[in-house]
Each structure stands twice: as structure tokens, then as C-alpha cells.
């Protein structure tokens, strides 16, 4: 266990150095050591941000090269971009311009433009799946099953709301239906999430595998329901009946759009902040975090490990299911098979956010921009939009290796002159996962 290094008996920091009369230069050395550690601790949040930012920049830089390389591999009439006298078929600046600015549309002229609406709606769902994954991560469980939980949440809420929608109407109807729908989505997603939780807690089944398998099962099952018993008879598509307009999330600010709701985004942000509070400010959250980073200590502290795993997976599934319900009430308007990979994207969101629910809002915005922008890239340039997928992978890769950035940082770090080893610096490495 590398976290023990700093205090290991012979690594030097313990023992006699605490003795008042050690009499050598040790106290000052020790003080400096603590100073350095203090700074490190204080810096960890900033550092996290720096690492995420650097990961993003580095990925963009590699993507830049990739675009150039792709531009050499294809052929075209005239160079779209030239560098050092070499022509390239794709212009990386144009691509990034389309990707990042395209996602905001003509924001200055009309902040409520359609492309920005897409960005908002994608971001909203990603906040939910992002915090879903983050909650599980915090409890030390890796929930790859967000997709399945989202699919079931979406399907259930679409069905239930359609079933109830005959009974109510108008603004009251909207209130009732949206709340019922959200509750249903959360409930069903929660159940579906609790299954791998229980399998892990009571049968020791690796959750990475069970959640992946359950994704396949959920997708197939949803296909069966949406193509069979609950199929919209009017449509060729495997989908449930379209929900009436009043059953959808109100979208006061995007006239003419049914898919983007700032209210839904506000709900997502509220939930994210709420989850952050839950984790930090409640006994349950304390249990979750403790069992996530140090299960033995949690057990010592009276945390019921099995129950916490199940509870946090249920919560995680509920959040993903909530995301599914929001997807239905904003983007889709019904349940249709072929739900986009929000669940998987949630993993990247959570990783980029360092599993912090509030930071997940920013990370979700980034991936919302990427998703929305990739469409602009596809339409506006010749560069295959799969590029965005590569960027996503690279970002995750770099975020996974904070040590890389620390090592770069160390090169210019004076503190390091004190000693030659990087062991001590690593003590807070990989704390979350």
C-alpha cells in the first residue's frame, strides 16, 4: 500500500524525529516536509483542476496532429491548411472552431439558438449519468451499467407517464406527469442498479462484469418491450407512443424546441449540488466515502459494507434512471430503442471531474459541447466526427495518469531538490479510484 510510505517506520518521518531532543537538523527538515505536504494537501483541489485542464489541452494537441495526419492520408483539391510549407487537407483550426464554438451556435446574436439548445440538452443528461457514476465511484464501486439503468429508467418513465397522461392535463398535468415520470425513472433505474450492487455485496460478483452484462440485457429487454407489447402502432420505429406536449419538461427559454430545457438543466445542477451535500454533509455520505477509499477503515467505523454497496449502487442507478427520464422528457419525447451512450459518457464525465458531483457539471458541459460540436464538425468539415471519440479517450487516458503531470511539474519544482525520490509525492496519487 503506497499510502503508508510517509509514515512507515523506516521511511524516516516517524519515530525519533518526534522526539523533542533529537538534536540534529531533523526538526527543520521535518518542518519543511510538513510545509511541503501542507501545500500539497491544499493544492489537491487546484491540482485536480490543473490535471484535468492539462489533460484536455494535451488531448487537443494530439487531436491536432491526428487531424493533420488524416489530412495527409486523404487527398483533396487544394490545401485547407498549410504548415511549414506542407499542405494538409483538413484545417485543424477550422475543426476545433466547429467543435467548440459550433456547439454554441451563433451565441452572441441569439443565445437561444438551436445548436446551443442541443448542447444544453446533452449536457443535462450527462450531468445525471456523470454524477451517477461518481456516486458509485465514491463508494468504491465501478458502475459501468449506467447505460442499462438509463435505458430502463427512460423506458419506465415513458410508459408510466403515457399511462397516466390521460388522467390529467394542462400545467398541473405537466407538474404531475413530470414528477411522476422522474420518480419512476429514478425508481426503476435504482432497482436495476441495485442488482449488480447486491451481486457484488452478497455474491462477490465483480461489478464491472455484471454491469456490462446487464447493459446487454437491458438493451435487449427494452427492445423487446418497445418493439412488442408497448410499441407505438403508428410508427415503424421501435418506440413507445409519443407523449403529449404537456407531459414534457417545460422549456420556457427555447421557443420551438422541445428538446432543451433550462429547467431540466437547473434540476440537474440542483441534483448535483444535492449529491455533493449528501456525500459531504450526511452520515450516509460519510459511510459511502469511507467505504470507497478505505473499506477496512469503514468496517472499523461501523459501516455495513454490503448495505453501503447496495445503497450506493441503487442511488447511482436512480441517478442514471433520472437521466433517462429527463432524456425522455426533453430530447426524445418517448422511448425509442437506440438510446445514445449517455451511460458510458457518464463514466468519462465522472473521471474528468475527479468524481466530484459539482465538477461533474463542468465536465458534462465539456462533453455536451463535444457531442454537439461533433455534429457541426460532421456537417461543416470533412473530418470524420469519430475524432471526437478519440479525444474523449485521450482525455480519460491523461486524467488516469496524474503522475505524468506531476513528473512534469516536478522538473520545475524546487521542493524536489530536498530529496531525489518521488515516492512521497505519490502518496496522494489515485485517491479516488
Amino acid at each position, binding site marked *: 500500500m503506497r499510502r503508508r510510505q510517509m509514515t512507515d517506520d523506516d521511511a524516516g518521518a516517524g519515530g525519533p524525529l518526534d522526539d523533542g531532543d533529537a538534536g540534529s537538523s531533523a526538526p527543520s527538515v521535518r518542518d519543511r516536509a510538513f510545509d511541503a505536504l501542507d501545500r500539497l494537501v491544499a493544492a489537491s483541489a487546484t491540482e485536480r483542476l490543473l490535471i484535468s485542464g492539462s489533460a484536455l489541452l494535451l488531448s487537443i494537441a494530439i487531436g491536432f496532429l491526428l487531424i493533420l495526419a488524416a489530412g495527409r492520408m486523404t487527398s483533396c483539391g487544394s490545401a485547407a491548411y498549410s504548415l511549414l510549407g506542407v499542405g494538409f487537407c483538413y484545417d485543424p483550426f477550422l475543426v476545433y472552431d466547429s467543435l467548440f464554438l459550433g456547439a454554441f451556435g451563433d451565441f452572441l446574436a441569439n443565445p437561444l439558438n438551436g445548436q446551443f439548445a442541443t448542447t444544453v440538452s446533452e449536457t443535462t443528461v450527462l450531468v445525471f449519468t456523470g454524477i451517477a457514476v461518481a456516486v458509485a465511484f465514491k463508494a468504491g464501486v465501478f458502475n459501468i451499467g449506467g447505460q442499462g439503468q438509463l435505458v430502463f429508467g427512460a423506458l419506465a418513465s415513458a410508459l408510466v407517464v403515457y399511462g397516466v397522461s390521460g388522467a390529467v392535463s394542462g400545467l398541473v398535468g405537466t407538474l404531475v406527469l413530470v414528477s411522476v415520470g422522474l420518480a419512476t425513472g429514478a425508481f426503476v433505474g435504482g432497482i436495476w442498479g441495485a442488482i449488480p450492487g447486491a451481486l457484488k455485496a452478497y455474491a462477490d460478483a*465483480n461489478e464491472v462484469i455484471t454491469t456490462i452484462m446487464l447493459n446487454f440485457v437491458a438493451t*435487449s429487454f427494452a427492445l*423487446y418491450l418497445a418493439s412488442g407489447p408497448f410499441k407505438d402502432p403508428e410508427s415503424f420505429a421501435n418506440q413507445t407512443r409519443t407523449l403529449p406536449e404537456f407531459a414534457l419538461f417545460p422549456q420556457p427559454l427555447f421557443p420551438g424546441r422541445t428538446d432543451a430545457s433550462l429547467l431540466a438543466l437547473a434540476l440537474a445542477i440542483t441534483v448535483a449540488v444535492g449529491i455533493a451535500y449528501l456525500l459531504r454533509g450526511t452520515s450516509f455520505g460519510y459511510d459511502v466515502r469511507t467505504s470507497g477509499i478505505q473499506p477496512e477503515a469503514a468496517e472499523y467505523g461501523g459501516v455495513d459494507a454490503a448495505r453501503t454497496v447496495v445503497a450506493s449502487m441503487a442511488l447511482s442507478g436512480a441517478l442514471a434512471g433520472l437521466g433517462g427520464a429527463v432524456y425522455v422528457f426533453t430530447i426524445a419525447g418517448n422511448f425509442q430503442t437506440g438510446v445514445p451512450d449517455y451511460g458510458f459518457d457518464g463514466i468519462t464525465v465522472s473521471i474528468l471531474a475527479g468524481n466530484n458531483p459539482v465538477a461533474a457539471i463542468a465536465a458534462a458541459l465539456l462533453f455536451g459541447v463535444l457531442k454537439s460540436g461533433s455534429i457541426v464538425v460532421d456537417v461543416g468539415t470533412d473530418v*470524420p466526427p469519430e475524432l471526437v*471519440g478519440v479525444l474523449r*479517450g485521450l482525455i480519460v*487516458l491523461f486524467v488516469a*495518469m496524474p503522475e505524468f503531470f506531476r513528473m512534469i511539474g516536478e522538473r520545475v519544482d524546487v521542493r524536489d531538490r530536498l530529496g531525489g525520490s518521488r*515516492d512521497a509525492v505519490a502518496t496522494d496519487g489515485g485517491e479516488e479510484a
Partner: protein
Amino acid sequence: MSATAAVSDLGTRARLAVAGAAALFLSAGALALTGSTDVLLAVLALLFEKSTLAAALRLSVPIAFAALGGIFAEKSGVINIGLEGLLIVSAFGGVYVTSITGSVWLGLLGGVAVSTLLALLFAIVCIEFRADQIIAGLAIWLIALGLAPFASTVVFGSTNASAGTTFPSIGRLLANSGLPVVSTAGVAALDALAGVPFFGALFEASPMVYLMFVAVGASWWTLNRTSFGRWVHASGENPKALDTAGVRVSRVRYAAVLLSGVLAGVGGAALSLSLGQFVGNGPTMVNGKGFIAIVTYLLGNYNPVGALLSTLLFAGLDALQLSLQGQNVLAIPRPLVRTIPYVSVIVVLALFGKTRLPEAAGEHYESGEE
């Protein structure tokens, strides 16, 4: 030979036996729900069709190779959850190189090369830069998921690509081998053996199926009988013991992860080149096979032979699922029939979840670290 010795490892054998029984029991239970012994008999008949075994063998190839790769990496202490990604890039690489050179064998090498390169990246990130292995593996998957269709679009103009050719059959290989006796006698013998019910499938399989058997045997030998295998084992169980014994842990881990790249590369290229096609839409043609591979080697308790058997179990269920649909044996909607292999995996995992991971799996090791 090696197989018998390996299976004599009681733990593994018992696990697999019970796992197989459980899968059968599960299927039987599902059938009981539909309420007919005719159905049960029909299913059993299908299960012992030669074509089911043939399909299981073919479907096993990419999974088994990836699983072998996963065993090496994880036994050495590096959990390689990026197998899926390695399969994806090698599936594309195989098609790409084949389409340039016109040779599937060069294509196979190309797929292996691409996959090994990506595995190298993974190894550097995990070993040199102490990345969290799970997240890095996930990143490898995501990168491959973007990169392969990206490259395919750049080179072929679409996320789907055709190699134009596929692996020759083993019979053709023999016939073209240029060895007069071998080619004629071999082909005749194969033809005769292929006529055997059920097991005949073993004698008319793709060369990749035979390569899979060879790879399983070789992997078993490497892990259990060579120094390198010992080192891999020690590196995953107690890296410090290996380090203090004078073997560089990081080198062993590099070798093991690269080996996982090579093996997964064979699997991925075999997948695409047996069809002459790369399909890069959505989850790509690999479609979770890398993750299934992880399940199979966990179930096989890190034993290559065990992994092969559990791969065959899964692939067999998948093959069975397809024939159940075709022959309309079950009165269950088709999308649900398709979930049989996945549900079985979950049940089996729940029953035998207690896989003992190598002690140091997932942990970074650096020489000199206390």
C-alpha cells in the same frame, strides 16, 4: 499433454463443471417456464449438433485470444480492461493491411502490430506513469472506439471497410502447402474426420481455430512451465519478492502487457479477417467481446485451458441462441432469447464470483518502494 495436466487442476475443473451445469440448469429452467419437455429435447438436440460446436469454435476465437492476453496481463499485476479496445484496433488493422497487401497473413500481422502498439501505450501509462489501471484500460477502449472508425473513414471513406479476402480453409491450406503427400492425404483425412457427428466440427474449422488451440497450449506452457511464467506469477502476487530476487518487475509487466496486445491482436484480426470486413458503427463489430473475454478468464481462474472452456461455454450459448431463434424452438420473443448468454454469465458469476485476483493486481509497483 498440457491440456490434461491443466484440467487436472481440480479447482478450475470443478468450477467449470459446476458453471456448465449451472448454465444448463438455467436454460432448462427457462424452458421449464415455457413448459414443455419437447422443447427441452429440441434444445438438447440443437446443443449437440455439429454446427453448434462449429459455431461455438468460431465465435470463441476472438474471445479466447483476448482472454489469453488478459490472463498474462492480469497475472503480472496489470488489469487490462482495455482488451475490447485492442480487439477493435486489430480488427481494423487486419482489414487495412490486408486491403493494401492482399494477404490475410500480412493482415494478421498488421492487426497484431497495431494492437501491440496500443498495448504498449497502455503499458507505459500504467507502469511508467502509475495510471489507475482500470481508468487507463477504459481509456484504451474509448480511444480505440474512436480511432478505428476514424481511420476507417479517412482511409476507406466509411466506418465500414472491406479487406476483399478472408482466411482460406484449413483444407485449402493443406492442399496448397506444396507437400505432395501431406496435401492429398491430409485433405482426405480431414474430409473423413469432418464427417464424424458433433466432433467433426473440429476437423473443418478455420485455421484460426487451430491457432487458438495452439495459443491456449502455448500460453499454458508459458505460464506454468517456463521461467517467464514464474516471473509473471510472482509479479502479480508479490512483485517485491520478484524484485528482490533480481528480476525487474516492470520488464516482466511490460512483456506481459505487450503479450496481451499480441494475443488480443490475433483475436481482433481473426474476427475481422474471417469475414473480410471491418464494421465500425456503434460499438463496432467487436461489440463487447473483449469484456466477455474478461469474464471467461475470471471464470477459468486465470488458467488458459479454463478460459478456453468457459469461452466455449459462452460461445456455445450464443450459437445455441441463434439456432433457437432460427428454428423457433422457444416461445420467447427473440430479443429475449438473445439475452441468454449474458444472463448465464451473470448467474455463473454470482455463483462463482469469488475469483481470487492476483494479490498485487491493480497496484502499481516501483522498485525501491517500501
